[in-house]
C-alpha cells in the first residue's frame, strides 16, 4: 500500500487549509481528501475526525498512483512530542511543511474556530486565556469539548521547541517553514517555493483565489471520497458538520489580549527567529514580518568570460584542484548557489577582525560542545595587512560530517543556512548578519582537506609580506573586472587561491613542518 511522503504538520489557523487547496490542484501531488486524519501523534487525544486504524489511513492514499508526492495536513502534529519520530519511522523519506503565524492572531483565530465548533464556551478571548491554568488541570472545560488540548491557546502559539523537534528528527533539508506573513504577501512565490521543496514542477500555475480553488478541487474531492470505506466517510462527515456549525460573530481581538499573548510568547518568538534565521521582531509589535532578506541566485554575468576563465585555468593547478571536486562541477554548483545580498564595502585591514573571530569562536565552541574539533579563521580578514569587507570567514571542523543537530545548535546562535559552501561540496555554508558585519561559517568534517589548505595559505601570507602584497595586487586587478559578474570573479580568484595554496604547501614542506592538520 502506498504510504504518504509529505506532511503539513501545522500550526492550526496559519493557512494550512489554503495551502492544501493549492497543492491538491497539482498533477504530481495526491492530497488526502480528509485533510487532518491525525494518524500519528500517539500522545494526542483523539478528535472526532481522527483516523487511528492503519487500513483506513492508507485508504486515503490508495488513489495516489505514481504521483511522486502523497500527503496530508494534520495541524496538531506540530504540538505532538511523539509525532515527528512516529512519522519518520513510518515514512523515512518524508518532507515536512510547517506554517507559522504571529502568536496572538493565531491563538485568537483558534479561539474563534472553537466557538463555532463547540469546543469553546467562554464568551471572550480574555476569559479563555485566563482560564488556561484551570483547563490545564481539566477544569472549566465546555460541555461540548472534544479536544481540551486545543483550549491551551498560549501553548499552541509557542512554536520554537516544536519546530526544533522536527528539524532535529528530519534534518533542515527536509523541513520547510512558511511564515503566514510571507504566504499572504506573495502567495505565488510561497507556493512555488513549497513546490520546489517537494520536488515537483514548480512552474505549475494553480488557481490561488480561495473560492475558485475550492471550485476547482471539489469534483476531485467527490471522486476521492466515493472510493473511501463508508466508516471513513462517516467520520469525515461528522468533522465537516462541526466545522460548519452555527457561527455567531465573535468580539474582535482586543489590544489587551493581544498584548498579553505577545508578551507571553516574546521569548519563544526570539528563539524561533534564531532557529529560522529570520527577524521576527515585528511579531512582538503585532506587525507583519518583513520579507526574507533578499537572497538571489548569483547573477550569471558574462557567461562567455566565465567560460574563458574556466578554460584558461592553469593546467598544473587544475590537476591539484580537481582532486576533490572538478572545476566543471564546481562551476555548475556555483551557478545554482544562493548568495546573500550584501551591501558591505571594502575596508583597510582592521585589528578588530581577529578579535571578532575570537569572540565568535568562543560562541561556536559553546554551542557545539565537544563536537567542535577544529576552528580556523581564514580568508582576507585573517591576514594582517590585507583589505577586506567586514566578513569573517570561519572554518568549523566537526567530529564527523555536519548533521541537523549541529546545524540546529548553530541556528541557536543566529546562523542561517545557505546550502553548500562555495569552497567545498561537502561543507555547509551558514551566515549571520550583524549590522555592518557578517560571520560566515563553513562547517564540515574536520578531515576535509580544504581546511588545512586554507590554514596553510593564511600562515604563508602572514609570514611573507611580499607574497601578501602580490596577492592583494592580484585581487585588486581582479576587482576591476567585476563587471563580468560574480561567477567570473570567483573563478579567477579560485585560480589565484589554488596557486597560493600550492606555494604555501611547498613552503611548509621545505621548512620540514608537518601538514597543517590541527591547530
Amino acid at each position: 500500500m502506498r504510504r504518504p511522503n509529505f506532511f503539513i504538520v501545522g500550526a492550526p489557523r496559519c493557512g494550512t487549509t489554503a495551502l492544501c487547496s493549492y497543492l491538491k490542484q497539482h498533477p504530481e501531488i495526491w492530497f488526502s481528501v480528509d485533510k487532518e486524519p491525525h494518524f500519528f501523534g500517539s500522545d494526542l487525544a483523539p478528535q472526532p475526525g481522527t483516523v487511528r486504524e492503519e487500513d483506513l489511513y492508507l485508504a486515503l492514499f490508495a488513489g495516489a498512483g505514481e504521483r511522486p508526492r502523497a500527503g496530508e495536513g494534520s495541524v496538531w502534529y506540530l504540538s505532538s512530542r511523539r509525532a515527528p519520530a512516529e512519522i519518520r519511522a513510518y515514512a523515512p523519506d518524508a518532507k515536512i511543511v510547517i506554517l507559522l503565524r504571529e502568536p496572538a492572531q493565531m491563538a485568537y483565530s483558534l479561539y474563534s474556530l472553537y466557538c463555532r465548533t463547540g469546543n469553546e464556551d467562554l464568551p471572550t478571548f480574555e476569559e479563555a486565556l485566563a482560564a488556561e491554568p484551570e483547563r490545564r488541570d481539566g477544569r472549566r472545560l465546555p460541555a461540548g469539548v472534544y479536544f481540551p488540548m486545543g483550549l491551551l491557546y498560549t501553548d499552541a502559539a509557542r512554536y520554537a521547541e516544536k519546530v526544533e523537534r522536527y528539524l532535529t528528527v528530519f534534518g533542515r533539508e527536509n523541513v520547510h517553514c512558511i511564515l503566514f506573513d510571507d504566504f499572504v504577501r506573495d502567495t505565488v512565490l510561497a507556493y512555488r517555493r513549497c513546490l520546489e521543496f517537494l520536488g515537483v514542477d514548480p512552474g505549475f500555475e494553480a488557481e490561488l483565489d480561495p473560492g475558485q480553488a475550492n471550485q476547482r478541487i471539489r469534483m476531485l474531492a467527490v471522486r476521492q471520497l466515493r472510493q473511501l470505506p463508508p466508516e471513513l466517510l462517516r467520520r469525515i462527515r461528522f468533522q465537516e458538520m462541526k466545522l460548519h456549525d452555527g457561527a455567531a460573530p465573535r468580539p474582535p481581538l482586543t489590544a489587551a489580549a493581544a498584548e498579553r499573548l505577545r508578551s507571553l510568547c516574546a521569548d519563544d518568538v526570539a528563539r524561533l527567529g534564531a532557529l529560522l534565521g529570520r527577524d521576527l521582531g515585528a511579531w512582538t509589535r503585532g506587525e507583519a514580518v518583513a520579507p526574507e532578506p533578499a537572497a538571489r541566485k548569483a547573477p550569471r554575468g558574462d557567461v562567455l568570460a566565465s567560460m574563458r576563465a574556466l578554460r584558461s585555468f592553469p593546467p598544473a593547478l587544475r590537476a591539484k584542484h580537481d582532486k576533490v571536486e572538478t572545476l566543471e562541477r564546481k562551476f555548475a554548483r556555483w551557478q545554482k548557489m544562493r548568495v546573500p545580498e550584501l551591501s558591505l564595502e571594502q575596508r583597510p585591514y582592521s585589528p578588530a577582525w581577529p578579535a571578532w573571530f575570537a569572540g565568535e569562536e568562543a560562541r561556536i565552541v559553546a554551542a557545539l560542545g565537544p563536537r567542535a574539533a577544529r576552528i580556523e579563521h581564514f580568508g582576507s580578514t585573517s591576514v594582517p595587512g590585507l583589505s577586506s569587507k567586514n566578513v569573517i570567514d570561519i572554518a568549523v571542523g566537526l567530529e564527523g560530517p555536519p548533521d541537523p543537530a549541529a546545524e540546529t545548535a548553530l541556528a541557536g546562535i543566529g546562523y542561517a543556512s545557505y546550502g553548500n559552501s562555495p569552497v567545498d561540496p561537502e561543507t555547509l555554508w551558514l551566515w549571520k548578519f550583524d549590522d555592518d558585519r557578517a560571520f560566515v561559517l563553513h562547517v564540515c568534517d574536520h578531515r576535509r582537506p580544504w581546511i588545512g589548505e586554507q590554514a596553510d595559505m593564511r600562515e604563508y601570507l602572514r609570514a611573507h609580506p611580499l607574497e601578501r602584497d602580490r596577492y592583494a595586487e592580484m585581487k585588486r586587478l581582479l576587482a576591476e573586472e567585476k563587471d563580468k559578474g560574480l561567477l567570473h570573479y570567483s573563478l579567477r580568484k579560485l585560480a589565484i587561491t589554488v596557486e597560493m595554496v600550492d606555494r604555501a604547501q611547498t613552503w611548509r614542506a621545505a621548512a620540514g613542518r608537518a601538514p597543517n592538520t590541527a591547530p
Partner: protein
Amino acid sequence: MTDQVLEQIKRIVVEDLDVNLKYEDLDDSVPLFEEGLALDSVILVELVSFIEKRFNILLRDESLNMETFKNLQSVARVIREQLAEKPA
C-alpha cells in the same frame, strides 16, 4: 408533465440527505453550491451514492464534474442520459 427523475432527486435531497432542506427550497435551477444549497463535497458523495442506488446506475467518473452538478436539472439530465444507455 411532471419530471419523474427530477422529482426523485428532490426526494433524495429532502428525505435521505442530512441537510435540513425543505421541498419548497428546491427550485430546479437553484445552484447546488455556495450561493445556492451550499452542499459540501461529503454531502455530494452521499447524493451520488443515493442516486446510484435509486436509479440502479453507476455514474461515470467523467460525469462527476461541475457541469453535472450545476443544479438539479443538470443532475437529472445526466441521469436520464445514463438510463437511456442502459440495456433494457
